[in-house]
């Protein structure tokens, strides 16, 4: 009986099902809309739901692979700099004469290259923590962007380019469609392929995976490559929204993305979480900032609110997880926890 319970990784008990973190996020999400509509008469209109996602979805693209990274027990703080570098290279190449469609591909290529570099170093030097590698590459990539563009801006893109960041297909913004497609792809990759299972496995116990024949090095490289690629996509959308670029764009994106992933219930100790959580977290933080901005709450108060939201939600998460953990794993540590509290 005890062994069977350990093997079950998703509870069939309907009560446990509804106590999952993702449902709490759904409740918070709905609550935010309710509160926002009370706060401002300008909130509840179609405009909000069409226009607002475009302003926060650009970093949402990175949230998808970052979920993989954190489930694996790693971290990547170089994404903001990757966005900056891809964007700067694209703009510079376009202004040097490269046709725009090729420049776009170049942007994605640069992003992927940055991610690949991260991945190769991580795989070749497993003693080094992902944190220090990505801190170093974070400084390096943005530094290269500064070397290229110095203190200038680069822009002058063709008219049709603004369609990426501002345009809609019918009523639905293009960014939302693109994001939805990516989200579905990443979700399938995580939950329905063996690759995804390996990612979870590595988060739980990397050494066990290694000795079981899983090619951990390859997985790390692929995940890093994907992260870089999505950063390139973010660069495409962000640059389209701004119409120009500089080396200092996307500052601070990495912490915002990590916050969204963690709020989505992905544990940074690795091995836990689903893609759905971070998706919801993206929209929660996005709409919350927007709604509060509509009543002109000052930036500092918004900082405190988001920080407090992050902390309280995780506190609740831990209490829930503790309960479900106790029932899932009737091992000695579980018993000890029960007697301690």
């Amino acid at each position: 009986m005890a062994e069977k319970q350990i093997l079950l990784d998703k509870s069939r008990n309907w009560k446990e099902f509804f106590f999952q973190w993702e449902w709490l996020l759904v409740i918070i999400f709905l609550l935010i809309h309710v509160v926002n509509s009370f706060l401002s008469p300008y909130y509840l209109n179609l405009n909000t739901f069409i226009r607002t996602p475009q302003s926060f979805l650009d970093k949402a693209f990175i949230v998808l692979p970052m979920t993989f990274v954190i489930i694996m027990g790693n971290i990547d703080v170089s994404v903001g700099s990757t966005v900056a570098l891809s964007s700067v290279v694209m703009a510079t190449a376009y202004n040097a004469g490269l046709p725009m469609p090729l420049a776009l591909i170049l942007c994605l290529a640069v992003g992927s290259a940055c991610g690949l570099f991260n991945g190769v170093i991580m795989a070749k030097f497993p003693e080094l923590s992902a944190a220090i590698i990505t801190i170093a590459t974070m400084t390096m990539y943005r530094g290269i962007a500064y070397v290229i563009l110095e203190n200038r801006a680069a822009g002058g893109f063709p008219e049709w380019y603004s369609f990426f960041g501002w345009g809609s297909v019918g009523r639905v913004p293009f960014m939302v469609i693109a994001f939805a497609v990516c989200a579905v792809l990443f979700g399938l990759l995580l939950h329905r392929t063996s690759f995804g299972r390996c990612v979870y496995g590595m988060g739980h116990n990397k050494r066990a995976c290694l000795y079981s024949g899983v090619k951990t090095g390859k997985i790390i490289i692929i995940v890093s490559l994907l992260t870089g690629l999505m950063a390139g996509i973010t660069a495409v959308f962000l640059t389209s929204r701004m119409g120009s670029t500089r080396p200092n764009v996307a500052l601070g994106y990495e912490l915002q993305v990590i916050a969204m992933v963690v709020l989505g219930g992905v544990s940074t100790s690795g091995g836990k979480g689903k893609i759905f959580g971070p998706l919801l977290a993206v929209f929660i933080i996005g709409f919350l900032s927007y709604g509060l901005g509509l009543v002109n709450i000052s930036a500092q108060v918004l900082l405190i609110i988001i920080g407090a939201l992050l902390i309280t939600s995780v506190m609740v998460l831990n209490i829930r997880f503790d309960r479900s953990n106790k029932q899932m794993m009737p091992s000695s540590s579980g018993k000890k926890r029960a007697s301690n509290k």
Partner: protein
Amino acid sequence: MRKVFAKVIILTVIAAFLVPAVLFAAGAREEVGERHAFVFKNTGNPYGEKQMEGFKEGVEEMGHQAILRAPDQPTAEDQIQILEQLIAQNVDSICVTANDYDALEPVIRNAMNAGIVVTSADSATNPASRATFVNQADAEMIGRTLIQAAYDMIGGAGDIAILSATSTASNQNLWIEWMQEELTDPKYDDVELVEIAYGDDLRDKSVAETEALLRSHPDLECIIAPTTVGIAAASRVITDNDLIGEVYITGLGLPSEMAEYINNGACPYMFLWNPIDVGYLAAYTNMALVNEEITGAAGETFEAGRLGSYEIVEADDGGTEVLLGPPFRFDPDNIDEWKDVY
């Protein structure tokens, strides 16, 4: 026990949202005349706070409502988000101090299409993204005046250096260009500009850059720092290293930050303008545009409350601007009366 605790937490979170919601809902229903918004570069900046104060003063003098916003990071992305929120609120006009010359263009175009008047102040947006630009002082005048000040301080000959803010700030680069232009005059043949350093408007980095300048160029006689953080940092270094009188500091600085250094001689005199007046003028410019007294074209004139009347002129970048006036000089005679103001 745990269950109760968890419920308490959830209820607290919900309450934390609802209580301010109710409080705000009470306030949000009023409709007050016109609404004019001002967006600065970032929060926690006393210079920006003073500009916003001036803007509010001007707007409220005419009986309207002022909305003051600033992002917590000085980035263009955050300003874009704020501008979108203002568009959704259907404000009548927006004045923005841009973190980036070009990056706000798409969102500003949306604002203009929605019928909102958009101007910029202090740090300009490109001509397509503004009706007009409220300029605190002529860039040419700033550049030339600062070089002339350095010239006077070093006695006509010697090495000088510039300590700037971030390498991407448009107003900084414009002033530096005019400084270099002024230096081409034969009068400055014995004066050499040895380096331009960037302190990124960060206190510790500006100090490090100043120290590096002093070490790399032992004959340096004057540092021009057209940034409020940079000039204070450089003056601090000079004071701490007992170099008062050997290396002079001048530039653009806040009287409150520089009072100590003007009084101890590290900085004989410096320049700035009154940010309160910049905001005040911006308020009146916006209101005049909204009331269609002016359209932002060169040659038009309008009244700006206690500041008198102003004329819109051509700007260097192809758009138009409104000049506040000449830069104001701060020296030991007047610093004490200004240091508590801003």
